[in-house]
């Protein structure tokens, strides 16, 4: 195969990347644009929309809620993911495929369905929607991603390492803590970061279950109705996108390091 040649397929791939990145490229343009209307032509450079963000108490409350939720979800989903990933890669048990498929189901189910079924159960139990109910919902949603990432770390482990530790007198728990855990730590960090990003961005479940404690996306959704607030929304969006991409790059670094540590090929991506 000749390399570096410009074929129709390569041009298509380039155009497709432009299509994929179009919204992200436009976002900072409007965030720094000195005009209240979100449209071309651009009016000039300003940072006042970012300054406005600092003077919005409702936004700060929403950010606080989102951070609490995202941190809790990252820890909870990754812990649950650890159990599942280890069980799936290490042991055989009846109905393995079915059980895993069921746990992975939130990946394909429409979020609206998950959200209203959780809402219905909460109402029947007489519980009020709050931060805690969002944490529960987001954990359900993030678990499949955590499992997928951790499965990658566990799959490459050499079983004889753990057996050797046990033969040399370690207990099962000790072998897990001293041998397995350090080897899968990069995977755990990557999984926590990804769950954090998903939870921070997730809208539908938070929207249905938030009650009067909005998360960042729910706050954003409310602001989208007011044309005068749109530049501020663009500024907030720019920060969120920059944060997501930074966390993603860190997560990718850890995922690749984890793969290198267990001697696997990088297959790319988290999905």
């Amino acid at each position, binding site marked *: 195969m000749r390399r570096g040649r410009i074929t129709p397929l390569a041009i298509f791939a380039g155009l497709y990347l432009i299509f994929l990145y179009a919204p992200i490229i436009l976002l900072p343009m409007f965030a720094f644009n000195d005009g209240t209307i979100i449209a*071309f032509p651009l009016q000039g450079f300003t940072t006042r929309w970012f300054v406005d963000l600092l003077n919005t108490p409702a936004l700060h409350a929403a950010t606080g809620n989102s951070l609490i939720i995202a941190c809790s979800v990252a820890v909870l989903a990754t812990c649950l993911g650890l159990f599942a990933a280890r069980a799936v890669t290490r*042991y055989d048990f009846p109905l393995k495929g079915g059980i895993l498929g069921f746990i992975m189901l939130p990946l394909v189910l429409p979020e609206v369905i998950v959200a209203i079924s959780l809402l219905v159960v909460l*109402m029947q139990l007489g519980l009020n929607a709050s931060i805690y109910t969002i944490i529960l919902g987001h954990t359900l949603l993030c678990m499949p991603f955590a499992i997928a990432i951790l499965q990658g770390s566990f799959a490459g482990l050499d079983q004889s390492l753990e057996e050797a530790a046990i033969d040399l007198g370690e207990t099962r728990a000790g072998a897990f803590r001293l041998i397995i855990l350090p080897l899968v730590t990069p995977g755990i960090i990557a999984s926590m970061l990804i769950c954090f990003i998903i939870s921070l961005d997730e*809208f539908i479940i938070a929207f249905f279950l938030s009650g009067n404690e909005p998360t960042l996306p729910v706050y954003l959704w409310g602001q*989208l109705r007011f044309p005068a607030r749109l530049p501020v929304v663009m500024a907030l969006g720019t920060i969120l996108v920059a944060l997501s991409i930074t966390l993603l790059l860190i997560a990718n670094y850890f995922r690749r390091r984890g793969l290198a540590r267990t001697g696997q090929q990088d297959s*790319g*991506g988290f999905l």
Partner: protein
Amino acid sequence: MISPPLIYAILLLAVPLLSIILFSFWTQTFLTINRDLTIENYAEALTDPLYRVLMERSLRISASVTAATVILAFPIAYYISFKVRPERKALWLFLITIPFWTSYLIRIFLWRVILAYDGPVNGTLIGLGVIDQPLSWILYNANAVIITLAHAFAPFAILPIFVSLEKIDRSLLEAARDLGEGTVMTFLRVTLPLTMPGVLAAVLIVFIPTVGDYVTPRLVGGSGGTMIANMIYVQIFDLSNRPMGATLAVLAMLTVTITLAWAILHVRFWVHLSDRVGGGVAGLCLAVLAAVVDIAIIRWVYLNGDAWFGTAGALGVMAAIMVGGAAAIAIFVPKGRWGL
């Protein structure tokens, strides 16, 4: 070891899903919920033309999104798998997934800006002299929903197709060429059939969630792009008729399941028919003929069934034909070379 995540999924997924099924048989007047089981909601949902229009539109939009996403994703997956140097594949995949991890709301909102009357798409096209007037059919209607969703779900289609392309043994392609097949025929007879499992996964993973999408129709759909999830939200929060919302959710899931089962198993049947007559042009004609007949039957019942079976009855008969046909194929027709 599997138990903690399994228990969690049962408590927060299986129990809620089962309870909305129960809930859908209840009724609500103002704030009191009447727990007597009744099929009132279903009767209303199946006969009221409003719900039918929304469900039909949701299916049509999702089907278009799925087709657009998969058709656009295939060349990209093919390019990465076959044309990109191995050490750069991971980078390409990473590039494709980055937009997916950035704020969903913001991304969809920006499509409203991009597709706007005075937005960059119209600006560029006018600047290039392709059009004189800004296009009005690309925002606040079903087309806008399709474009935006095709963007949002792109990585979900690219990745499964890429994985199945990577699994193809390259020596098979060489063998086909050595045996005298041209590039196009090698692609059609070796590469494409071997990629079908990935295409199927892509179809499932795009079609199912898009039917229930709420944000995109609200932000870019206008009144002509409203979908079933918007109605579910209105029932629950604006009309305080939660059981009706649950009913619509159950019906939406049921419709998606039946449609997918029908489509996937009938494709198996059509491929099987084609293989039975030895493939080639005759096989293709037979498969197309069978597809046209199958679709015509469903279409006829959907459009003309009212007079025979009543409004709800026609939908029931249609569902029975679809499920019955799919079940018969599942039992009697073996999995073909497409792995379906």
